[in-house]
């Protein structure tokens, strides 16, 4: 949700609504979730769509750092596979160059986790690139989702921004007094996490007051938005059918 300012009015009046792009992203995420990683062709096509989306939206390479949590989680899962006890009847696979055997089912799980999650994270990153926060709010509203769900999604995104800003303030305050090392660094980090929770709680409370003070009753109201059009719904339907056919190939 980056390019928030300059061409918002133009985008607001463009022919394709943000609801369509959010809908398309949802369709692609569902396709990535249900695809069998053993189907090379389907995975290849979904990967192609993902790369195309990254290129078309000109997603900067630095955004790929969003894959880092996934990488660390995948490593954690791989390490779990190494220590999991193996039953003699269990199908296993031998790791190349290492000789260590790991459960076959577990290795498929790990492969599915890495492939599907990577595709989903990259698709979300690509689709988020040209959409502003306003597009997110207008798009979710235009999809006809329940107002409280729309508010929740939007406030989560806002919350992540607040969290990032608060963390950077805390880190600056810590560094200004000398960066702690060793075990003390861990203690300071724990104290910072505690402070962060308190500050975020307070901010959430004040923001809730600010919302209610101006008449919020469960709907984050925008003055200019439109429902997704019939043509766009039809296009999404076509995409869904095509991707379903593709994943069942």
């Amino acid at each position, binding site marked *: 949700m980056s390019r928030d300012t300059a061409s918002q009015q133009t985008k607001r009046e463009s022919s394709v609504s943000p609801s369509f792009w959010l809908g398309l992203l949802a369709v692609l995420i569902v396709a990535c979730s249900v695809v069998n990683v053993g189907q090379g062709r389907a995975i290849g096509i979904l990967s192609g769509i993902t790369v195309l989306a990254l290129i078309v939206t000109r997603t900067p390479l630095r955004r790929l750092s969003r894959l880092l949590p996934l990488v660390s989680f995948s490593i954690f899962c791989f390490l779990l596979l190494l220590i999991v006890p193996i039953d003699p009847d269990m199908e296993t696979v031998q790791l190349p160059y290492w000789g260590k055997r790991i459960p076959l089912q577990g290795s498929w799980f790990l492969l599915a986790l890495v492939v599907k999650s990577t595709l989903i994270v990259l698709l979300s990153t690509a689709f988020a690139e040209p959409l502003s926060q306003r597009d997110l709010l207008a798009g979710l509203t235009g999809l006809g989702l329940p107002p409280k769900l729309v508010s929740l999604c939007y406030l989560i995104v806002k919350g992540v921004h607040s969290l990032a800003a608060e963390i950077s303030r805390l880190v600056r305050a810590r560094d200004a007094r000398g960066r702690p090392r060793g075990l003390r660094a861990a203690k300071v980090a724990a104290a910072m996490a505690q402070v962060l929770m308190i500050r975020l709680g307070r901010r959430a409370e004040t923001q809730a007051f600010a919302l209610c003070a*101006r008449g919020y009753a469960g709907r984050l109201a925008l003055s200019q938005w439109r429902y997704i059009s019939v043509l766009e719904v039809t296009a999404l339907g076509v995409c869904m059918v095509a991707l379903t056919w593709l994943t069942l190939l």
Partner: protein
Amino acid sequence: MADIALDIEVEDLSFHYPDGTLALEDVSLCVPRGGRTALIGPNGAGKSTLMLHLNGLLRGEGTIEVLGQELAERNIGDIRRHVGLVFQSPDDQLFMPSVFDEVAFAAVNAGYDTEEVRRRVSKALGTVGMSGHEDKHPTKLSLGQKKRISIASVLVTDNRILLLDEPSAGLDPAGRRDLIALFDSLNSTLIIATHDLDLVRQLCPDAVVLKDGKVVRTGPTAEILGDAEFLRSCGL
């Protein structure tokens, strides 16, 4: 006060926070229609807590009458439409994705149609001198601009009462001067919680001094601010 129309009348208001901290104790005050009253007191005196009560966001013991109606669950929406609250930190208040949407928020909630919302937003932004910033993201503005947007976001529904919590906090001298000129031009009843005594002197003929959640003095601002010993005893 018997024959003066009152916009706000608070009687014996007390409030404890959930952890048991006494924030307000038997607070009583009156604000006349069109008046400008300052709530002054040191940090933790209960100014912000009292402001939240006047908008119905917190509910304590005692009675609050706003525009002749006793504040209750049944009329809270109606009262909030007439009472605008500007928070101390605009970062806490601003959450919509563009200046236009931020200012329009209360007007859309009030049920005005699109054209009326546009007209009101345009008027409110003009009042605070922020026309032309409609498409900007509120978080990318300067503090002074954010404060102006916060004020526009409550002016948009023609609030008859404006509650301003530390409006001059963090502003540079020019921003502060502009803000004082802006408040001076408004016709609404103003209640300003602050410890900026110069701002109080310039804007508010009446003042209420709070200390440890209690009203310790009310009266003409000039008289209160002239009593240096009293101010020192209140931590001001």
